[in-house]
């Protein structure tokens, strides 16, 4: 196999591996028995940062079957008193075993999360999440600057090779 082909194949695989969507799932934040339910909550990204986040929930009954017909609401309260309300739904989840809520955490620090689950029975669940400082947009821009740098380097290399040949 020629080097060129190997290079293109590797490039295609790297592109295939890239995915910029904030997926649901992620780290198991807690798993708890509440009333008739067993509730597992996942958070993404890991580590959790201010900015776009995902809170996903799996609700199971005592027979460990997944329960979908429940309404799940999150209320997040920051240390400074800011309150965020978000409804979780299966529609917003890529992984349909979960119900997912996409939120925009405006600040870092500890957030109190109050979860309300309403179905055949009702349950409330309180826990804390700790969000680190958000990635600066300049960090994203910095990473994205690598692309023109790499392409320019590749072009310079190509010009040299053409001259040498």
């Amino acid at each position, binding site marked *: *196999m*020629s*080097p*060129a*082909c*190997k*290079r*293109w*194949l*590797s490039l*295609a*695989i*790297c*592109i*295939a*591996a*890239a*995915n*910029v*969507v*904030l997926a649901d*799932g*992620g*780290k*198991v934040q807690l*798993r708890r028995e509440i009333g008739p339910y*067993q509730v*597992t909550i*996942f958070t*993404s*990204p890991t580590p959790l940062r201010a*900015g*776009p986040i995902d809170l996903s929930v799996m609700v*199971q009954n005592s027979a*460990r*079957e*997944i329960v*979908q*017909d429940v309404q799940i609401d999150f209320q997040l309260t920051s240390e400074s008193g800011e309150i965020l309300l978000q409804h979780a739904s*299966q529609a917003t989840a*890529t*992984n*349909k*075993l979960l119900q997912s809520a996409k939120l*925009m955490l405006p600040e870092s620090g500890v957030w109190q999360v109050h979860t309300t689950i309403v179905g055949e029975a009702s349950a409330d669940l309180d826990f804390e999440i700790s969000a680190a400082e958000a990635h600066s*947009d*300049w960090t*994203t*821009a910095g990473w*994205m*600057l690598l*692309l*023109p740098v790499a*392409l*320019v380097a590749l*072009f310079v290399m*190509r010009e040299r*090779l*053409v001259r040498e*040949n």
Partner: protein
Amino acid sequence: MNADFLSAISSSWQFSPSILFALVVSGWIYFRGWRSLRQRGSSRFPPWRLGAFFASLLTIFVALQSPLDALAPFSLQIHMVQHLLLMIVAPPLVWLAAPELPLLIGLPKWLRDEWIRPFARWRRLRLALAWIFRPQVAWIAFTATIWIWHAPYCYQLALESNFWHRVEHAMFLMASLLFWHPVMQPFPLRTTYSRWLLVPYLFLAGVQGTILSGILTFSHRVLYPHYAAAPNLWNITPLVDQSLAGAVMWIPTSLAYVIALFWIVAEQMSSGKAIAKRDGKYRSVTPAHRSPQPLGPRPSIWAPLLERRVVRLTLRWIMFTLAALIILDGLLGPQISALNLAGVAPWIHWRAILVISLIVGGNFFCAVCPFTVLRSVAKKFNLQYSFPKSLQNKWPSVALLALFFWAYEAFSLWDRPAWTALIVIGFFAVALLFDLLFVQAPFCKYVCPIGQFNFVQSLVSPSEVAVRSPDVCAGCRTRDCLAGNEQIAGCQLSLFVPKKQGNLDCTFCLDCADACPHQNITLVQLRPGVDLVSDAARSGVGRYSQRIDLAALIVVLLFAALLNAAWMTAPLVSLEETLTAAIGWGRLPIVTGGMLLGLLAAPFFLMQLLGKASLAMSAETADWRAPVMRFAPALIPLGLGMWLAHYSFHLFTSADSLLWATQRMANDHLATNFLIGGGVCSCCTAGSIAWLLPLELLFLDVGLCMSLWAAYRIAQREQPIPQIVLRTFAPWAIFLVIFFVACVWVLLQPMEMRGAYVAGL
């Protein structure tokens, strides 16, 4: 397992655009190459090779995007299946497809010639790749990858972080491709070592696999804390799940190694006879009949659609109807821009779709322009005046574009539906008036600001209207494509297609194609950007390097791209408010001053500076305008990148505003139910949607690289001495990088959401 579970799992397919894009593009390139090889009579690529390649892509898709990925966080066994698909199914299928030749031949020729060939000839790269693909290196890379990613810390990291999960999958796939390469020995690889060496290669791989599987199977504790905490879906304990995962790893991988081992041994035991037979099979084949390839450039993928006149006319009337709706709602609807079609359709959706269509295909808006719908009627009453010679250039459009950008800011046009409707009416009226008064189509060529924007940006489009075969045109004496005939007008912008090059002034109307009696004109593929660096004399346009009016148009559009986006950022809005309060004359003088400075004065002085710097660097004695005219086309890609980034921001943060406005309009006129709610405009920075800022920056990155490339090639075109090339190029490169940084800064600022729907209105 309840019905909820089955329903949820069956709908848990993912369709990640990046993965789909990579798989579809790889498949398409392979198919093109495979088809070409078949047409050349190669019997080494029977249909099963194509099937193997597509099967490998399908396996990767299933591994990464199917419900397996949804179940993987809950069960180590399922996760293991996912990994095995990437490690022992997809890679052998890839190599069975012998992808080297098809992938190379499937690429565009210019890419092969200009980019692949120099690197393919690079000895150091060849040696490095040969070293990586050596069996011992491949074996170590494969084993190390498996063990590293099964270490508890790394595995846990991959389970918790999407980023590391993707890295893990990519490494598994790449290491496995390396591992299976010497075993499968894909054509045209010829090994220099004995194939017997693959016996210990596979045996030792089996041994290490057995040890790892054994650890997973017989461990007394859960190795990965994630699975201990994850929900239990099938009433099996995490330890049992782990043991079963070990077995899942053990049996199929061992089988794969054993089958490969038997195959190698059988092949070697049959000695040279079988191998000679296998090779001989290919040598004895007579090349198949190759179907004759049509001469001339390849047709664009848009050609079959747009070369039908009925399609173009239908689209034109649809655009006309949409324009009528915008006028109607702009004049009669509520003057709340976010809820009025005239507030959202032109300023959020149409602009974004326009620039996207320019980079995807070409000047499609002009092809279906609603303002020219009545042209054929108007021509019947045409007074046959000639458009004044002094105005037959781009200066009127430079002035009109500057006036438009000023008016847009000064009168907040995005927030005035009625004014927007009046502007659309104005377009119709002026277009009609020009068609009644003048011969040819001076409105499109010299006046229409939208047309000028499209002409300039379409210089980097991947399609152009061109002839299929130059020989046919050489024998043509009637020149119907230019002069027209009794049925069709021909090119009204005075472009003679055989001598036309690129897209400048071409409205893609394809009247030339309809008029051509030989059916020799169509939409063909154009290598994006190649027109920027060519200085050929073009029919109806001349040389770009001698058009100061064109250079001015390009420069104004470049700076307008930055200014138009910058004026909605918090720092500039704040500066405007501060100055307005300080001076006390209202907003108009500030906006006017800002526009004069940003669109005219600053570009003029900067271009003068760059022109003089270019001349000084090349020790050339000429007017400063000469290098500006030469290098101006190189500025287009960066400008287009900024337009694209800016308009994408509006489109992706406010796409649903069209729905609200349409519902509201329907409610007003048809008394349907309209319930406002659900839409929230919280997106005031590109960073508030995870993928939007990277996408915007990607557009800018590509624009910058293309601009730098074009500027360098223009410098090479003008200067034969390499040292002078670099010196001439340097000022433009510095300017492009500074402009790029300014664009990045603008994109990172909080944006004032203009005309977008905000909950609670």
